[in-house]
Every structure is written in C-alpha cells, then in structure tokens.
C-alpha cells in the first residue's frame, strides 16, 4: 500500500525531536512509526502518523520544514524469511532501496520502503503476492 510519510528537517540540537513529539501530542496525533536519519548538522525525522494532514498543519504552524514523502507499506509477517522474500522481489526487478524501516500495526508487521519508483515497487510486490 502506498502511504504518505512525514519528513521533518531538524537541526542537530538537543530538544528538537522532543519539540516535534510535543507538537503532535498536543494535536492529539498518534505516531505509528518513526525513524531518524542523521547527517553532520541536521537530521530528517521521518514519521507515519494517525492524521497526516493534521500533523503537517500543526508542524508547519510551528515553523518547521515539513514535506510529505511517498513510501510503500508492505506486509512483512513476523516469521523467518519474510524480509528476504520482499528484498528478493525488489532485487529481481533491479529496484534499489533508498531506506526502509519496520513497524508493527496491530498484529501485522509492516515494512516501510522508500525507493525512487514507488509505483514499480508496488507493482512488483503485488505480482509476487506480497503488499
């Protein structure tokens, strides 16, 4: 399933991540998955939330640089070999992964995948009976 991830640009300063979490908490928005990618001076805080639109409004209002990024959420059952299966499909189609992380949604384990061509990635996984 193609979903929208929120990416927030943050300087590497103590308390910046806390600030984002607080804004979302005050807007009563649930964070379902997150991941922080870091560079020298800044990082990108990536989030999957319960109310994407509301989160973007709240974060922008606080003056933060926020963008939406299209990612793929694929089912990745909590059993040995599930991840291999997904990655084999992508490798077979020469799709390279920019980054990925996982989260548990209810009972189901989900893999969040970011690639240059999300549509192709989704098609490949559907054809293989995943996604």
């Amino acid at each position: 399933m193609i979903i929208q991830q929120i990416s927030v640009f943050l300087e590497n300063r103590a308390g910046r991540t806390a600030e984002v979490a607080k804004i979302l908490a005050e807007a009563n928005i649930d964070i379902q998955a997150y991941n922080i990618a870091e560079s020298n001076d800044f990082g990108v805080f990536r989030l999957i939330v319960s109310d994407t639109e509301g989160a973007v409004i709240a974060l922008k209002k606080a003056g933060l640089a926020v963008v939406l990024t299209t990612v793929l959420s694929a089912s990745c059952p909590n059993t040995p070999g599930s991840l291999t299966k997904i990655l084999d499909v992508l490798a077979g189609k020469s799709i390279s992964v920019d980054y990925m992380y996982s989260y548990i949604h209810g009972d189901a384990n989900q893999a969040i995948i970011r690639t240059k061509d999300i549509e192709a990635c989704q098609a490949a996984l559907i054809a293989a009976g995943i996604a």
Partner: protein
Amino acid sequence: MIFNPEKECMSREDLRKLQSERLVKIVKHAYDNVPMYKERMDALGVKPEDIKSIDDIVKLPFTTKKDLRDFYPDKLFAVPRSEIVRFHASSGTTGKPIVAGYTAHDVENWAEGVARCLAAGGMSKEDTIQVSYGYGLFTGGLGAHDGATKLGAAVLPTSAGNTAKQIMLMEDLQSTGLCCTPSYALFLAEEIEKEGKKDAVKLKSGFFGAEPWTEGMRKELEAKLGIKAYDLYGLTEISGPGVGGECECQNGTHLWEDMFYPEIINPETGEQLPDGVEGELVFTTLDKWGMPMLRYRTRDLTHLIHEKCECGRTLCRMGRILGRTDDMLIIRGVNVFPSQVESILLEIPEFQGQYYITVDRVNNVDTFDIDVELREEYYSDDIAAMNKLADKLVGRIVSVIGIKPKIHIVEPGSITRSMGKAKHVTDNRKFK
C-alpha cells in the same frame, strides 16, 4: 524626476567654483569654532587662508570615528547650543554612541539630499512613502521622513517593526515607496509572500540603505516586491541618509557633492586615489554648520566615477560599497567581506539570502562557519541532495573568496531577521 536641476545638473566648472567657495567658508568656520580643528591644522602648519580652492582639501587633516567618541558629546559642534535644533546619535556597539548636532540650515540641507534621492527613484508629491526605518536617535527614520515631506509626498511613518501592521497599512493606504534597511525589506518581502499579498501591495520604488547590500539582493528585492530598488546612502556623521542616492540608471550612487565633497583615499597612506580605483570614501561637509566634518573617513570601501550620467546629472557617482574597512575579516590570512558571502548566496537559487558567519580559532587555525537557510521548497526527505547543495556553496565560496568554509544548513527562519541593521558575524577569536 530631478528634484533640483540647478544643482544636480550644474556644469563641472560651476560646481568646482561652488565647492571651492564653500570649502573656504566651512574651513574658516571649523577652525574658528572647533578647538580640535584649530589644533590639528596648527600642528600641520595649515591656516584657513591657505585653503583657496577645492584642490587645497588635501592639506586638511582627517577626522575619524574615534574623534567623535573622544570629543563626545558636543565638543565638535561649531555653533552655540542655541543654534542647534536637533540631535541624533548612532548606535554605539562599544561604549558611548556618537552624537551629531544640526542647525535649522543643516536639517534643511539634509532633507534636500533625501528629497533628491526619492525623486531620482521616481517619487513625487503623488506618492505615499512608507518610512520603515526606525524613528528616534537613528537618523534613518526622521531623515527619510523630512526628505519625503520636502518632496511633498505623503509620509506613512510606520517606523521599524510590527511587521503585520506594516503590511496591512502598506496595502490599505497603497504605499508606493518604501524606505528601510535592505535586510528588513527582505524580511517584509518574505512576510508579504507568506500572507499571499504580493498583488495587493502597490509599491513602485524602494530606498534601501544604512548597511551595505549587493546586486544579488537588489534583484531579489525587485522580484519579490515588484519594485525598483535604489541605494540610499548616508551616515550620521555627515548628516544621515541622503548623502547620495541612485537614479533610474541604477549605475552608481550619485553623491550630492555640492553639499558633501567626496574623496577616495588609500586607507594605509591617506593619499587621494583617482576615479575607478577602490579605496576608502572620505567626506567633507561643505555646507553644514552645526558639526562641520573635514575629511571624515567613512571606512566604506568604494570608487568614484566623475563621468556624466545618462540621467543628465553631473554630480559624481560612487560604485557599490564593497564593505567597510572595519567589517573586513581576515580569516587564515585572507580578506573576507561578509557581503561577498551574501552575493554568492543570492546567486544560488536554492538558498535564501540570510546567513550568519562565526569565526573562531581552534588549535591555532581559524575556523570559518556559515549558517544558511534553504528556500522552503529545497528542504526535503533527501539528505544526500541537501548535503550536495551545501557542497555546491562551499565550492562557490572557495572559488570566489579563496578559503573553505564549513556550511551548516539550519532550519527555515532560524537565522535572526533584523528590523534595523543586520548583524551577520560573530568573531570569537581572542587577539592579544
């Protein structure tokens, strides 16, 4: 429009005559009434009678900012206190400010200078000029105010700050002219853009000064505000804004040299330099009586052009101010002007013009760090792309300035926007 064609377009020959007459009078006035000038001229063996024409100006001693501090607050005044009608004071970053005193005649001349600048930038009595320079001791607000009044325009004296109200009044009263610092103009432009009011604002001309700015910043201000942006040059020591201003040709800042006589000197030797050669700008006030200044060293670096301008004015022009002798940073032995960083930033479309330089010395090596902001649309999920932009900027700075900075991309809006003169540098090095 030319506000005072008789003066602004006078023949160079008549101008020289006028300058010579005025110099003779003002030197005598300074010598007779200001002990510092008497002492300094006596020390050089120069008497007022030795000054017969404008060429004799090189015989006179220089005046510096330090003199204005040392003779604080009014020891350089040349008239009785009863003749003074106005005081201004410049922002002193260290210790006491410098104070300027004006006679009624001085205030008139100052307003004339500003009125010439506003007219040269297309303003007339039909216009509404919003003065967003600070009002008070700073010469910006009241100087621009008096000039716009002299021109017969309607003044909207908003002063600096309270940006939302500035924009509301700008829209509701249809301001056509704007006077403020270029950095505040940029801030206003960003806010106007954010509020989606670009089309509602009817500005035609902007008059920006009190801090050095660049061609890149001009382009940006013109595009963002839909205006023509003109340099409005001046300094408190000489009067205030309106010592000179640009005409519609935007090809150098005309200096009102019938009132303020400019020279360019070699800052090391004090020797006069010819047209086109960069050096320190020096002014002698030819018709200012409250606090006459003989050969005041501005510390601004620029060059002069005496060729007649296409606009018809014969009064000379100066080039862009490259920086100030005292703004110049020496980093790893290389001369760096903050304005160079600004020009480079404005040439790269992915960056905002805002920046902040921090210089320090770690293990005996100078560090050169620059905080910059991206334009909103370039903040992304793609870390590699953002790092590539920072590398691109490093490459440009290395090729233009010659030393390698460390670039820090910071969050949008996190570099402090200034309402008055922008502060762009912190130098933490301790020199003993």
